[in-house]
């Protein structure tokens, strides 16, 4: 099932981007051998270690010259350091058909992804965006400063929602492709019919820190319809004919809240973060309100 979502303008305006510059993506875990982020590490030592010397060549950085050796030996040697890799931040972005079925969750998710990427770019973090539905799609890596935001935005604007969600398959592929641990941000409605808790738990069990952002449209949580309705699953095309009354709507909402609580419990149980965002909430409130409150960003 494919729904075409056409963006009529830029995902984020300049004013909003400027407000994002004071934020930082937070994670709680310390990953051995990795630097980056803006958390205090429990391990002592600096971020760079001396590796070797080599002869100085024209054009090398004069700041790395071993001046003590020059004064003693009258030769210029250049100090070489081993740069430790930064903590990888990977963002799984749900592009299944259910994201476009109601409330334009897909656009909301893309805007949120663009916001988090910009926050990471400003803090010189490396963020990899990985779209997924039934499988993991080709992603986009961004890093190196705020001036690298534009390619990320173009990548996000070019995404289309389609396909069925299969979290288990996606997580397996992800763990195979990216064995290095890091922060995993999942932007999704988590509406996978077989269930997504087990797949999320795999991610956590492999040492990743989870930041789960659940998106829902208001009609996903509180259906407005009454009477005789023929429901059609946006992803699978499955149909359900039923009579909707107030009691059925109440039970539906209770089931949804129970499902969201399960997602939240998976995140918190693994020292991760959880944010539930309805699409009716302005993106600014979602970032500066809900996500700051859950300490996903600060």
């Amino acid at each position, binding site marked *: 099932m494919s729904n075409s979502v056409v963006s009529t303008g830029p995902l984020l305006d300049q004013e909003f981007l400027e407000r994002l510059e004071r934020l930082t993506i937070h994670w709680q875990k310390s990953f051995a051998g990795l630097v980056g982020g803006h958390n205090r590490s429990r391990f002592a030592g600096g971020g760079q270690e001396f590796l070797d010397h080599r002869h100085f060549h024209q054009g090398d950085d004069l700041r790395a010259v071993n001046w003590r050796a020059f004064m003693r030996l009258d030769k210029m040697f250049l100090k070489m350091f081993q740069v430790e890799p930064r903590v990888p931040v990977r963002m799984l972005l749900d592009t299944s058909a259910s994201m476009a079925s109601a409330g334009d969750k897909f656009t909301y998710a893309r805007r949120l992804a663009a916001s988090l990427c910009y926050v990471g770019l400003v803090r010189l973090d490396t963020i990899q965006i990985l779209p997924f539905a039934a499988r993991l799609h080709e992603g986009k890596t961004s890093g190196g400063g705020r001036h690298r935001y534009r390619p990320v935005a173009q990548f996000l604007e070019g995404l289309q929602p389609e396909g069925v969600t299969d979290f288990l398959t996606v997580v397996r592929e992800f763990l195979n492709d990216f064995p290095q641990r890091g922060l995993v941000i999942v932007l999704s409605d988590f509406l996978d019919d077989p269930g997504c808790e087990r797949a999320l738990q795999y991610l956590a069990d492999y040492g990743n820190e989870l930041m789960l952002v659940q998106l829902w449209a208001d009609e996903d949580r509180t*259906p407005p*319809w009454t009477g005789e309705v*023929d429901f*059609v699953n946006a992803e699978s095309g499955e149909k359900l004919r039923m*009579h909707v009354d107030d009691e059925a709507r109440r039970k539906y909402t209770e089931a949804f809240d129970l*499902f969201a609580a399960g997602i939240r419990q998976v995140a918190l149980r693994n020292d991760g973060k959880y944010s539930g965002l309805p699409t009716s909430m302005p993106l600014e409130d979602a970032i500066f309100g809900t996500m700051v409150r859950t300490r996903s960003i600060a």
Partner: protein
Amino acid sequence: MFLLNLSLGQFLAIFGAIGVFAVALYLLDRSRRKQVVATLKFWSEPGRPAPESRRKKIQQPLSLLLQLLGMLLLLLAIAGFTVGGRQNARRDHVLVLDTSAWMGALLPNRPDATLMDLARANALGWLRAVPAEDRVLVLRADGLATPATSWELDRRNITRAILDSKPGSTTLNLSHSLDFARQLQRRSGSFAGEIVYAGPGRISAAEANNMTLPDMPAFRVLTVNDAIENCGLRSVGARRSQTDKGTWDVLVRARNYGRIPHTVQLTLNFGSTPQGSQSIDLPPGQERETTFKVHTIAAGVLETRLYPKDPFGADNYAALELPSMRTLPVVVYSEQPDPIRPVLAADPRIAAEFRPVVQYGLNEGAANAGLIILDRFDPPSVPAGNSLWIDPPAGKSPVPVKERVDHPGDVAWTPDQPLTAGLRARDVQIDSTSVFDPGPNLTRIAEVEKGPVIVASASTDGKSKMVVMGFNPFAGPMRYELATPLLLANLLHWVAPDVFRDVDVTTQSAGSVTMPLTSGKESVQVLTEAGASLPFNIRGRAVEFFTGESSRVRVIAGNSERVYSLTLPEMWDVKWAPPPTARKGIPAFNESVRRSSDLWPFLALLGAALLIGEWLAYGRYSATRLRILKPRLGKAA
């Protein structure tokens, strides 16, 4: 409980149609629809099958009930549903505003205000107390009742009509006005409201004696205090003196309308010349008359004034237009004029000139004569105007003579002829007469056994008339009979009716005028100043007509003419007392407010609230749905 704007049948028909339409729309709206959703997993509890459809024709009966109830309430509001019986219905009121001549009287304490101003103020006060949804019609009442507005809701138009009302020239005909107001209420189609009379209630004695008020559901009187001392002229009449040639007998009647006796001065002027002045005492409520003699044969305006001036000045002055006295010139050609002389001298309106027969045709003045009498004379030429031939010579007569008869016996006068009015056969004694052989255009006036002895003819245009007598009525025994002057008088009246008509000039008030007739059989003409005919009615031996404004009217009835100078206002005789059941004064404002409590605003609000509530609770765009749509709409905008 009842409906103001719709009948019960109309209400049920409209509600039925709306109800059927609403149910049809409802069923259509509640039909099964397809909805794409993100997941189906939450519609069924874990481990239990999904709930089945249980389709019914009416799935949300409360929604349908609320819709129908809301529309019922709105329709009731439109239909004007009211509770409390007819007290709360919209009413049609008639304001009878007195515009009689008396309303022009000045108030004693405020010389710049009149009774009309008081009546206007009362009427406006009452109008402010009338509920805004009631309609009002303003009726101006004097001698006639004239609607000043239609049924009006716009208070500005009603106020303008009240302020534009001015005193007229006639007295109030209250019973007629109230009857007319009641008829208007019956035809209005709405519930009858009040009939309100604003004025002092001064009416004529004739109306007071025969007053019958119509059956009015609600009658209110806005009394105007008119305790004003006033004396005024009732009528001024003038007629030619029967004894003095060139003299008018003038009769002036004045009345005291106040409560204390007054002495007033009456003065007469003809042109600018004073003709007399008299002082008369007028007891309260009484009428007195006095006479004057005015010597003139010329036409002019006779002015009558009453002093001293009082708050109502319209009846202190009357103008009477006197016509000139006309005479008929008669030329007699006779060798023996003496027997004719006394007959013609008996009437001052005849100017007789006697000439010998030899002068016939020599004097040009004879051409202007109203009548030429040819006494046993054969003129060389036939006169052009009116002529009386007395015993013309045989063979020279304008009418062929059949034979000459001595002692013809009884003379029979032809009845129903103007020339034979009052003549009887036994009065006539004739020695000898010519018997004529009349043609077809001659009228027989008198006959003997052998044939006609007096014949008459008139030209086709009526300008020249001719009478031929076969005998001499001024000779023989007939000269002593009454028939001779009667016959000549009839002849003169027939030849010149305008001259011998009795002229009576009267000044009185405008309004309804009644003039007695001599016999009741004469032809009657009622002419205005411009010569146009005025509608009139003959009742018994009197002619009646009406004029609502000051004017001059001529009434010609047979041989008499009366000129009415209707310059005086028509005045009242008695004060009318309202019936004890009549409401009095301006109603209290709270009474109006209480009566005007309608339910339609509350019904409309309740109906709208029910429909909005139903829409929010069950509509496709319920509150939840609106909350969902709001960001989308904002984004689209």
